[in-house]
């Protein structure tokens, strides 16, 4: 790192981007998929019934309580999630008592019969989304450290990228195709500069999200290393008003249904996102209710009732949870990162911005290789490092989408009744990615690098284009019936897969034409 300030920044930009580029690409792709995690889960559990008409929420609570009374009579918490907003099914959640293990369990309810729908075990969109911060196969804390480090490198790459980009305004809106290295630089700039507010927000908020893990010194310094002390810290930071004191003293608890008239008198009918009874059977029991609408970018209205007396303890319309300025900033940043407030249109914009982020990383890696390839051709020698990056790029950039397609395919191909099928689904993702990563190196002597790109792009195209057919063959749902029944989530997923398939196909065809010349 020497020369002018800009040259030094250029060095830092190149290496901070390249070193963790592949992991950042993985984080961006899986994180972006997370903006549609519930929709992905809906597709991955085709057994879920379609709910098009608004169903009276009182009857859902009644049905859910009857079901929970039978299924989880000893549970310490009951929750009911209504089919509203981005929740596409009525779901009951419960936490087993401590004696039973304290695990969280859930069931999807059939609203016609009130019985649970038997759905396949799957990681769904949630697991795919969680991979962007917990990664996989490694301990959580280590994953938090790694993702924090990636976010830090990304942040450095973004800031240095702004510094090294000499003509950031002059070359705004500029992409010059078919100009080799120039085109790669242009497209890298397009993917970096246009969504830069998104990139900065998502990276910085990602760092803030994981700050309790990546910067534990502050907490340890004030609270010590004891786990109980850490819990004390968490409680003091995330304290909420309106919650009665935790108690083990037995007491009768109200039914959630009995509170529905009061809730509806405040918010109107069918406006709830979820209702939950915490601390069942104890004097500290309380009922928490959340509105389905967000207030700006923040969580919507909330009510808390005493679980035994039904007294209203907290109404977010009248008071708010105590928050320091730093906690408010933390909440704003994490809300922006998650984008839970986003409507369908805004969610798509988030999704496109996320893909542009992945595109920025991919084109950066391509640019690194293209620059050095041109130089190597001039000199007549090529380094092992260049070859390594060139071959890895194929397996990373196209291999990861193929691996995600394999995850969806596994969801439909792995037998439903097999044990641990969720694990098998995820394993299929990583095995496929591993194969895609090593195949360029194995086939290097038989196929040119161009051929490897085309082959993987064609494979990706085929896997994505055939996904709607796979859906039709392996479930009682298909694109046509979904469109006719108004199941826009199922249809939207299939159509998006077709779009991705066409894009990969176009990419392969474009390369075939280009390299034939």
């Amino acid at each position, binding site marked *: 790192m020497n020369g002018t300030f800009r040259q030094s920044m250029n060095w830092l930009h190149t290496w901070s981007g390249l070193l963790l580029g592949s992991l950042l690409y993985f984080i961006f792709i899986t994180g972006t998929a997370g903006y549609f995690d519930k929709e992905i889960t809906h597709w991955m559990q085709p057994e879920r019934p379609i709910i098009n008409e608004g169903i009276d929420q009182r009857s859902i609570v009644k049905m859910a309580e009857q079901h929970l009374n039978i299924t989880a009579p000893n549970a310490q918490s009951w929750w009911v999630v209504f089919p509203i907003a981005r929740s596409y099914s009525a779901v009951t959640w419960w936490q087993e008592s401590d004696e039973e293990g304290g695990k969280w369990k859930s069931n999807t309810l059939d609203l016609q019969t009130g019985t649970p729908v038997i759905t396949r075990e799957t990681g769904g969109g949630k697991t795919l989304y969680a991979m962007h911060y917990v990664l996989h196969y490694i301990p959580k804390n280590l994953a938090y450290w790694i993702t924090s480090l990636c976010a830090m490198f990304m942040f450095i790459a973004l800031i240095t990228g702004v510094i090294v980009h000499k003509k950031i305004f002059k070359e705004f809106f*500029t992409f010059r195709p078919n100009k080799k290295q120039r085109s790669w630089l242009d497209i890298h700039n397009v993917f970096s500069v246009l969504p830069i*507010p998104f990139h900065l927000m998502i990276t910085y908020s990602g760092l803030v999200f994981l700050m309790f893990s990546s910067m534990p010194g502050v907490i340890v310094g004030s609270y010590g290393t004891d786990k109980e002390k850490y819990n004390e810290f968490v409680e003091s930071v995330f304290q909420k008003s309106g919650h009665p004191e935790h108690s083990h003293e037995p007491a009768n608890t109200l039914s959630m249904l009995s509170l529905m008239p009061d809730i509806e008198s405040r918010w109107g009918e069918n406006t709830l996102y979820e209702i939950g009874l915490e601390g069942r059977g104890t004097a500290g029991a309380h009922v928490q209710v959340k509105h389905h609408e967000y207030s700006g*970018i*923040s969580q919507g209205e909330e009510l808390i009732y005493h679980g035994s007396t039904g007294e209203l303890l907290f109404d977010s319309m009248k008071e708010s949870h105590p928050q320091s300025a730093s906690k408010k900033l933390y909440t704003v940043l994490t809300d922006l990162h998650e984008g839970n*407030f*986003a409507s369908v249109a805004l969610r798509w914009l988030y999704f*496109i911005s996320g893909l542009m982020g992945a595109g920025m990383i991919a084109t950066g890696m391509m640019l690194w290789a293209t620059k050095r390839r041109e130089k190597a051709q001039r000199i007549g020698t090529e380094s092992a490092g260049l070859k390594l990056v060139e071959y890895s790029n194929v397996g990373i950039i196209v291999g990861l989408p193929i691996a995600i397609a394999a995850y969806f395919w596994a969801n439909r191909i792995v037998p439903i009744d097999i044990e641990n099928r969720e694990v098998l689904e995820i394993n299929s993702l990583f095995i496929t990615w591993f194969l895609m990563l090593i195949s360029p190196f194995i086939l290097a002597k038989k196929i040119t690098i161009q051929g490897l790109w085309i082959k993987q792009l064609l494979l990706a195209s085929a896997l994505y284009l055939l996904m709607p057919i796979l859906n039709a063959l392996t479930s009682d749902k298909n694109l046509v019936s979904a469109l006719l029944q108004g199941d826009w989530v199922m249809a939207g997923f299939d159509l998006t897969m077709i779009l991705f398939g066409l894009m990969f196909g176009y990419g392969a065809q474009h390369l075939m034409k280009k390299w034939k010349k």
Partner: protein
Amino acid sequence: MYIAALWVFMSCILLSLSIKRHYISTIAQSKISNKCSTLLFRLCGFSCLTFSFMLFFDLYGLALGLVSLVATFTVASLIQTLLLSYLTDWINKILLVLVLIISVFLP
């Protein structure tokens, strides 16, 4: 929301025309761009952007309005970049159609 998005798209077109390279490829046949037109396009572009922010603010409030504006601008500018690269001839026509649509909804 869609009208506000159209305003954002129009601002992208106008701002791109305020850049010499794009002005020449889109409007001017000769390789001379007028400083006055550059300033005018820039002014109109930023005015449209400000107006679209007001629309988003009116619809969603400050925080969500700002998020919506930035997200819409990102995608609109990507579309504009692709248009400038592959379909330069269309930009004038699109601008005209946008002006027509927006003027219908202006009252």
